[in-house]
């Protein structure tokens, strides 16, 4: 299992404004990591699942432009051993809410969630 990358680099103050795609990716990643049960995002074995924009790298999230002008977001996550279907629903709700707050609701088409790894209770030391 690759070591999950937990942080996204904040943009430099003097950089140009990030694109809508990068904004959505960042919102989705931050929203997903705040959901209870989600431990971190995973950039994959070769670090290819990354949204990059100038100085910023967002591991574990891909935002893809669609033909109709909207964006599809894919999240690659490491989570606890919880029911996955409700977890994915909570993640989607948070991402949609975050996109709406940022005025990007119309740009977000759908959110795919891929569970890359599950950390069991004995590994987290919770129980």
């Amino acid at each position, binding site marked *: 299992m690759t070591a999950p990358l937990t942080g996204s680099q904040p943009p430099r103050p003097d950089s140009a404004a990030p694109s809508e795609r990068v904004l959505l990716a960042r919102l989705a990643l931050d929203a997903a990591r705040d959901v209870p049960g989600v431990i971190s995002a995973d950039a994959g074995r070769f670090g290819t699942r990354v949204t990059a924009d100038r100085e910023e790298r967002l591991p574990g999230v891909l935002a893809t432009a669609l033909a109709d002008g909207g964006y599809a977001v894919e999240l690659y996550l490491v989570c606890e051993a919880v029911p996955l279907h409700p977890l994915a629903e909570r993640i989607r709700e948070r991402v949609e809410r975050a996109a709406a707050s940022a005025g990007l609701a119309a740009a977000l088409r759908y959110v795919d969630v891929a569970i890359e*790894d*599950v950390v*069991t209770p004995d590994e987290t030391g919770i129980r």
Partner: protein
Amino acid sequence: MTLLLRVLARIVVLVLLVALSLVGLAVAVFSIQGGDRPLSLPGLAEQVLLPEAEDDVGDYLGRVEAPGPLAKRSALAGAGAVLAGALLLLGVLAPRRERLVVFGKGTRGRLAARRRPLARAAEALAAQVRGVTEAKVRVRPPGRVRGGQLRVRVSHPRNQQGREVEQRVHGALAPLVESAAVKPRVEARPRKRGARVE
């Protein structure tokens, strides 16, 4: 290993395609003229020493037909070539990545999980069930023809009823496999004598 075979297969394919295109180009160029002229196919055969090659290969094939060390070496080389071809085929045909188990696909998006994390999640849930001392899970993702399966094997003390343990494990797994493309199959067995209880 599969990754290495895949890389090798791609390199070989690239080299063969380049060689094939060069041969095609040469044939095209040497088809401009006919007869015995320089830019003709007989001219090309002369350029690549085909008549001499024909003599050499003819001699070689004659020696291969006769019993002897050359025949054995040729047979081994042939077997090696077949094996190399089979390995390259494996590199081309082997699945690219671990198959995902798709839980659901709707207008809001898709949920999928890799086999190993799904198995670990199922093991963790099954191990928490009362009466379960050990849990092992294997995931068979859905294929083109048959559906996926979550094979769960749990151990329980002898004073527990296997069927009741199985039902409890089914209940524990229900939230995990709900709307997933895998069906759980639970098998409960009494713990073997002498096995340690953790």
